């Protein structure tokens, strides 16, 4: 048994997330990761934008900042820049990070600033009524795509890798221990660390895609996620419709706040 009570604001419970929404599963994995690394509540800051995922700071009893749509990363950049010793954790969704905040997303990754970003990917805009997001898979239905989505989705993790993030992983809430491990690795990494977490949205996504029961969405995650080691052995046909999970990139690169400190020392020394 893990005692979550010291990390949550119990007065706000039960939380607003729908029955079977995976956001609570991610929050619990994050709390266990924070506790496992002995990060105190005073040393951690959680920043979010707008959306279902971005409600998370309301439930966790650490320093929290609930900001405007798509702008969690700029606010978090400011926090990290002012206090580089804090562990700054950004919780964001697929719409928040890759649509309205898309530019912030690629530039924070390019800058390689030491933030831990948890991108809750549920393939849809849940809070605002099930509109297509940039990650809605082709052919899936949304309130703005009643006959099926004709656009190809972003490869969210791939976007962060090509932009320059030093740690990128993909996890899912069915394989919850692996998800916790990825979050822990991201927290430990010195640099921009992204964990894209596939999470079910039974209400806005599932109901429109024949998976209204939360169990169906969890089964989908169980049956369609493939760990990276196994992925390498699959043929292109076998990869069709499957999602690769695990650590996708882990490299050493100069970190922004450290580089900034060096710059100050250099210029002041002149």
């Amino acid at each position, binding site marked *: 048994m893990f005692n979550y009570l010291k990390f949550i604001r119990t007065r706000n419970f039960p939380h607003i997330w729908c*029955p079977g929404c995976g956001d609570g599963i991610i929050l619990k994995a994050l709390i266990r990761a924070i506790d496992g690394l002995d990060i105190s509540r005073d040393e951690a800051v959680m920043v979010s934008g707008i959306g279902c995922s971005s409600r998370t700071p309301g439930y966790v009893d650490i320093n929290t900042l609930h900001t405007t749509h798509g702008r969690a990363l700029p606010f978090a950049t400011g926090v990290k820049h002012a206090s580089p010793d804090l562990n700054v954790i950004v919780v964001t969704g697929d719409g928040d990070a890759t649509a309205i905040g898309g530019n912030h997303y690629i530039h924070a990754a390019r800058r390689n600033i030491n933030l831990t970003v948890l991108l809750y990917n549920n393939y849809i805009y849940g809070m605002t009524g099930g509109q297509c997001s940039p990650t809605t898979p082709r052919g899936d239905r949304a309130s703005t795509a009643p006959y099926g989505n004709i656009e190809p989705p972003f490869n969210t993790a791939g976007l962060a890798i090509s932009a320059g993030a030093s740690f990128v992983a993909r996890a899912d809430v069915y394989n919850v221990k692996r998800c916790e491990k990825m979050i822990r690795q991201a927290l430990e990494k010195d640099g921009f660390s992204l964990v894209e977490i596939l999470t079910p949205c039974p209400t806005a996504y599932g109901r429109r895609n024949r998976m209204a029961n939360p169990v169906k969405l*969890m089964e989908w995650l169980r049956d369609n996620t493939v760990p990276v080691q196994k992925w390498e052995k699959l043929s292109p046909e076998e990869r069709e419709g499957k999602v690769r999970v695990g650590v996708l990139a882990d490299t050493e690169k100069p970190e922004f706040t450290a580089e900034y400190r060096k710059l100050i020392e250099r210029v002041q020394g002149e």
Partner: protein
Amino acid sequence: MNDEQPASKKPAVIRVNGSWCKRCGICVAFCPKDVLEINEGNLEVARPDDCIACMLCELRCPDFAITVEKE
């Protein structure tokens, strides 16, 4: 195998916070020993003696509503 073991010895005690549980059914569906049940809108620990304390229900509960206490 071990006849000396008292019949009441259970590996774990499962507690459900009914006011936080939203009856999504994830714990019921993925319990490897089929310990949990939803009856008349309530989550019940129907077969506590079968629990093997794998913790999966606690880990996957989105509502912070299940705790599994190992004895």
